[in-house]
Structures are given as C-alpha cells and as structure tokens.
C-alpha cells in the first residue's frame, strides 16, 4: 500500500522520464555529431593558406569547388556512380527479395536472410580487395575465361575504372537493398494477390497492379540506404577504381590529410551532404506520394 501512496511522487511525468532516459544518448549525439557537423559547415567558409587558417567567412571554397573542372567532375562522377550502383543493386535485389518472400517456405526464410547477410559482415576491406583479385588483368575472371578459350586476351574494361567500382559496390550493398524490399513484400497481405486473381487478373498484371505498388516503400528505402553510403565511399574507388573511378571521398581525404587544406575538404564534404540530402528529399517526397491514401 505504501508504494501506491508514494507512487505519484516518484512517478514523474511520462515526458520527464523519457527525457531523462534519452538525455545521455542525445548529449552524445549533440557533442559528437551535431557540433562536429556544425564545425564542418563553419570550416567550409574559412580558408587556408599553407599552415595558417583564415577565419574570415568566405565563399571561396564553394566557388572553387563548383568552378574547378576537377572538383566539379568528381562530384558529378560520384553522383553518377552512386546512381548506377543504386540502380544495379536495387534492380538485382528485387527478384531475390521476391523469391525469398513468396517462394521460400516460411520456416526457411530466416535461413535465407541469414545467408544473404553473412557476406556483408565479413571484412569490407578484404571483400573489396578480393574483387580486385577477381577482376584484375591476371585475375580469376580473366584467367578462367582465357582458360576456357572464351576470350583471347584479358579483358581490361573491368578493373581500374567506374565499372569495377559499380560491380564491387553493388556486391557490398546487396543485403542493404534486399532487406527493406523483403520486409515490404512480407508485409503484403497474401489475400490481396488472391483477390486480384479472383477479380480476373493474371500473375503479371497482379504484380503490376498490386505487388509492385505495395512494395514501393521498401524499394524507396533500399534506394536511399544504398545511395547514401556509396556516394561517400572511399575504399572501393581507391582499390579498384583507378584514376577514372576516383570519387569525392578520395578528394576529401586528400584535402584533409595530404594537401592540408581542411576548409576545402570541408566544403566538399558539405557539398556531398547537400547532394545526399537533395536525393533523399526527392525520394522521400516520391514515397509520400506513393503512400498517399494509405496508413
């Protein structure tokens, strides 16, 4: 009984309890994420001459980043490569997600998802490096094709260029695309397909009129979850990209660690974030329109 009498006094309001719990993670995120991101933005408006940093605010870095063909090309190429990776990954992931969701017996689904996720959790560096081994001039792919007599000399268009970056990243981000689509497909009430069939539609038109629209939120999530990290990827372009496959992250790293021009690097980082946000907003908006008239 005494507990119940004391109850209201200890029982703080729900909001207060929530804040109390979330305070530590929030403080952490503020200090180590919000403040640094703010710092980067601030930095991008400064300028650096050798070792001295000039803290007067200027748009010089942005002007340079957007006018110098080197930076402009890098930004554009990063965008294109990311878009290609996203398209390739999502398009190849959809049939897998569809297969696991619709044709794998329920008790075996977890195992399939497990199988799909395992490669993702093995060392990223080594995985990317192995693609270099596979795609290289004397690599597994070329030596196999040569050995089989399918080609006469090693294929060169598959390493040290953008193609190699796309293949490698599509491989690395496959589970990221498969999982959200799989989850969206799993959520679809199976009787909706039967209802469509019952109302006269065949398998294909049922897919177009029912399955695909309902899987769209998963597809959009997959697009975002692949696009965002790939645009900032450093390792893959460095290892398999060659000079034509370099991306913006490589330049940011160069500016910070090699050229010692942190403000320029910061400006490029901010521009990258801006591109990511722009693409994300477009897709979130598209998703909203798809979701119009739904829960």
């Amino acid at each position, binding site marked *: 009984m005494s*507990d119940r009498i004391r109850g209201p006094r*200890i029982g703080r309001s*729900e*909001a*207060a*309890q*929530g*804040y109390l*719990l*979330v305070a530590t*993670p*929030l403080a*952490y*995120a503020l200090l*180590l*994420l919000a*403040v*640094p*991101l703010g710092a*980067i933005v601030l930095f991008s408006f400064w300028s650096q001459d050798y070792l001295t940093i000039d803290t007067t605010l200027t748009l010089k870095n942005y002007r340079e980043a957007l006018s110098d063909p080197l930076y402009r090309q890098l930004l554009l190429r990063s965008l294109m490569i990311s878009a290609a990776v996203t398209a390739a990954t999502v398009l190849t992931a959809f*049939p*897998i997600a569809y*297969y696991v969701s619709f*044709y794998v017996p329920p008790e075996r*689904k*977890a195992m399939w*998802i*497990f*199988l799909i*996720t*395992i*490669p993702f*959790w*093995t*060392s*990223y*560096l*080594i*995985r990317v490096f*192995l*693609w270099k*081994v596979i795609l290289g001039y004397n*690599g*597994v792919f070329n*030596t*196999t094709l040569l050995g089989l007599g399918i080609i006469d000399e090693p294929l060169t268009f598959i390493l040290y260029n953008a193609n190699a970056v796309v293949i490698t990243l599509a491989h690395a981000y*496959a589970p990221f695309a498969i999982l959200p689509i799989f989850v969206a497909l799993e959520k679809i009430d199976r009787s909706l397909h039967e209802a469509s069939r019952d109302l006269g539609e065949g398998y294909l038109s049922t897919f177009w009129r029912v399955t695909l629209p309902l899987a769209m939120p998963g597809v959009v999530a997959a697009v*975002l979850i692949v696009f*965002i*990290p790939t645009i900032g990827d*450093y*390792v893959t372009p460095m290892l398999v990209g060659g000079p034509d496959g370099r991306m913006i*992250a490589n330049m940011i*790293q160069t500016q*910070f660690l090699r050229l010692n021009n*942190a403000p320029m690097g*910061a400006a490029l*980082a901010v521009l990258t*974030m801006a591109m*990511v946000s722009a693409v994300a907003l477009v897709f979130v908006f598209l998703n909203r329109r798809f979701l119009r008239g739904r829960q």
Partner: protein
Amino acid sequence: MKRPLRVYAILYLAFLYAPIALLPVFAFNDGTVIAFPLRGFTWGWFEQLTEIPALHAAVLNSLKIAVSTAILATCLGVLAARAATRFAFPGKKGVMGLIMLPLVLPEIIVAVSLLVVLLQLGLSLGAWTVILGHVLIATPFSIAILNSAFQGLDLSLEEAAVDLGETRLSSFRLVTLPLVMPGIISSLLIAFTISLDEFIIAFFLTGTEPTLPVYLWGQLRFPQRLPVIMALGTLLVLASVLLLAIAEYARRRGAARTGQKDAGGFL
C-alpha cells in the same frame, strides 16, 4: 515463375559468396601471386601470421576498441530504445532522428567532422578517438536491434511487477532486463563486429597505433604480403560467421521468449 527465380537466387548467392570463397583458396595456396593456376597446399601463410608483431598489436588495439564500442553503444542503445518504445515526449522524432542520423550519413563525413573538432581542440588522436567515432555509428544499429526487443515486450508485465510491490527500477531489473537480454547480447555482438570491421573513421582518427583494418590497408600495397592477408581474411571470416551465428541465435531466442513471430533478419 518459381523455377527461374530459384535459379536466379542461387546465382545471386554465388555472386555474393564468390569473393569470400576465394579467401581460403589463396590462403592455402603455396604461391606468392594471387592468381590461378594454384600451386599446391600450404599452412605457411597461417604460420607467418604468428610472426608479425605489428599485426598482433593492431589486432589487440582493434579488440580493445571493439569491446569498448560494443559496451558503450549498447548502453546508449538501451537508454534510447527504452525511451523511444516506452515513453512519449515532445520532440521525440527530432531527438531520435539526430541519434539515428549516422545510419544515413556517409562515414567519411562523420570521420572528417570529428577530425576537425578534435584537431581544433588540440586533442591528440588515439584509440579513444576511434572509440568515440565508432560508438557514434554503432549506436543506431544497437537502437534498431533493441527497439524490436523492447517493442516485443508486454507493457503489463512490468506493471504486474509494480502491482506486486516492486519499484519501477527493480521491476525493470527483474522483469524487463532478463526478457531483453537476448537483444542486448545481439546488440553487443553487432556493435563489436561493426567496430572491428570499420575502416574509414579509424583511418582518420587513429593516431600512431593502427587498428586491424588500417593495418590491413597499409599491407594491401605490398604484393608479397597478400597471401598472408588471405590467411588473415580467412580467419576473420570464420570469426564473424561465428559471432553472427551467436547473435542470430540470441535474437531468435529473444523473439521466442517474448512470443514474437520469427521474421528473420538483423536490420
């Protein structure tokens, strides 16, 4: 449609596993060049692994960082997931959005922004700065895992404990914690794995003591070191598969304990 899709699925799995399948092939290949044809079987590369002090230091450093990251990220994750699933408070969406933001931020951005601040403050880089960065990116994963663990929990269980005379805190300890324990274990393992494998943040924030991926990155430039790296990679793959199997087992047990339907998947 079932037949062609199945064939496609199997080919796709082959594509997913192709690089990893090559690891042991070259780890046991008695030749210094990573290419076909193979030259014979050897344990030599694995033996060499034991003779590189720099590697051992990097592994130890990585383990230290990964364990710290796992514990810190899971603690933060428990707090945030509990707040998100149990309490309503104004601004919850924004707060959770900020905490989950690293999930949708290119890692290089996280890395350079932290680097800028640390250097401006005149702090020296080291294992602890890497931990700071890794906790930041691992916490969202922990929250995602723990959210589902907390969500699967029947609220009335805790109320029943309070009704039977326990305080809010003791009922959390006696009822909630044991039920979400599998989620916590799985969160620890996932955060550990993320930290152990993370390269770019470590690359920027590590001082003079490299982590394992940073060490590996340095070695990739030397062709004669590659077979040893293959051997190391083989061991790493085995270790992560083992860790994942344990995490998956814990997750399933958790799902069974709170009476959820097994939906599969980590994310």
